[in-house]
């Protein structure tokens, strides 16, 4: 099951290498995999520290955005008025190119702090977590609703035994989407200023010095970071929804 994709990956790498060498493609168009691999190994220390910085920002953003998203979704599900009042705001937030807020946030929190990047990641995480969790809280099967009424359960009892557990799969769908967005947003926010550390900064400076293989090596690092986030949330989701209907 794992073998086929791995073989495909190896084949792609080999073809890529052959193409670069065979067609004498210039590095600024596309570096060869061996060159990238070479740079990756040499710059590993920088890549690792950059990954830690970007990864930490993404993690803070993920946690903050997820907690806020869940809380807001619970309030919106309980209080119709709140939901209607906040709907335009949430819609606006969902469509704003959040990284465009980066320069504003850097000015607010100072260019030396990582806070701006964490807030951007948090915002990118908030939207999918909020929307999906709210949807999950709103869908209760009619037979379960009837069952709770037949048991004369209080609203809190019904929420605790039926609504909340039923919303878990939806929450995790939102989290799975959000975890990748957290990494991407934290990284792209680095393009717009702020402290020097971070994979995004490293990518742009490597490209600025025309060391494209090195830039791709940093990109490889960011792919690995994104994958780690995605796989962790996926594992958490599989565990939490193992007995839910498909």
């Amino acid at each position, binding site marked *: 099951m794992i073998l086929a994709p791995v073989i495909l990956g190896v084949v792609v790498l080999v073809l890529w290498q052959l193409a670069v060498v065979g067609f004498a493609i210039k590095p600024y168009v596309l570096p060869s995999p061996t060159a990238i691999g070479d740079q990756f190994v040499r710059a590993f220390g920088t890549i690792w520290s950059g990954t830690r910085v970007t990864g930490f920002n993404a993690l803070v953003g993920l946690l903050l955005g997820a907690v806020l998203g869940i809380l807001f979704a619970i309030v919106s599900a309980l209080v119709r008025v709140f939901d209607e009042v906040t709907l335009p705001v949430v819609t606006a937030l969902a469509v704003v190119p959040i990284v465009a807020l980066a320069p504003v946030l850097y000015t607010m929190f100072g260019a030396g702090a990582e806070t701006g990047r964490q807030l951007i990641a948090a915002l990118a995480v908030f939207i999918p977590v909020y929307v999906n969790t709210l949807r999950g809280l709103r869908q209760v099967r009619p037979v*379960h609703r*009837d*069952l709770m*009424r037949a048991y004369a*359960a209080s609203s809190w009892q019904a929420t605790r*035994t039926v609504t909340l557990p039923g919303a878990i799969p939806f929450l995790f769908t939102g989290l799975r989407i959000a975890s990748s967005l957290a990494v991407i947003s934290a990284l792209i926010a680095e393009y717009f200023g702020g402290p020097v550390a971070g994979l995004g900064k490293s990518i742009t400076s490597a490209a600025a010095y025309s060391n494209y293989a090195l830039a791709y090596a940093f990109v490889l690092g960011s792919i690995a970071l994104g994958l780690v986030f995605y796989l962790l949330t996926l594992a958490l989701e599989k565990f939490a929804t193992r007995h*839910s*209907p498909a």
Partner: protein
Amino acid sequence: MSDAVTVSAASKIFPLARGQQVVALEVIDLTVAPGEFVSLIGPSGCGKSTLLRLIADLDQPTTGSIEVFGKTARQARIDQDYGIAFQQAGLLPWRTVTGNIELPLELHGVGKAARRARAAELLALVGLSDFADRYPDQLSGGMQQRVAIARSLAESPELLLMDEPFGALDEMTRERMQNELVRLCAETGAAVVFVTHSIPEAVFLSDRVVVMSPRPGRIREIVPVGLGSAGNRDDGLREASGFFAAVRAVREALHGVPAAEVREAETRRGVETLRGVETQ
């Protein structure tokens, strides 16, 4: 002792758009004695499920009243005087079989040890002790329904309300579940109001069969089934001549014409269906 269920001139009207309305039930009068098994049968749209929901206080009648054990339906619901089973088993997928059976006990403040004991007892009753720690997605449809029925018995109610609980099952499982249900009712002595589409099922299980007709929903006839008490009903009953006579009586009541004409009509149509039967 007051009747288990007393329905007095109850009707249910659902408003639609543009001032239209659907008369789901029109002036229903029905009593169910304690310990009696009553089936509601009829074509689609005759209001049998609606009537069950009114008794369960899942809906309120537009006019008339429903009393359960001498109280209002609402009070009976709050006092948890009945157990209920739906056509979809309605098990919570994130809870084990035991967790599902314990649900009503948990909601009503029964202690952990007592809950465990009761759930084990009920699982033995429905023959699923080996599946106590499984999850609903690991069970077949028939097994899920058995869990739902065990759950409906959790608080030993004196009244059971069941809305086509065997509807989604195959014939063999259905007959087996019917056998188990009469056995349970004999043991617990509960009154039952049972909604079904199946004539043989209604006759096998019931003391009386309430035949309903649609548009508007009302009781056409109540057919007494004189086949003995619940404790005496077993597989052999399905072959008895008294059983077939009762089935014929219910079928006549459903079709509204004597049996001979019905058979002629059936031969012409070639296949008998319960739905879409034209009333005379």
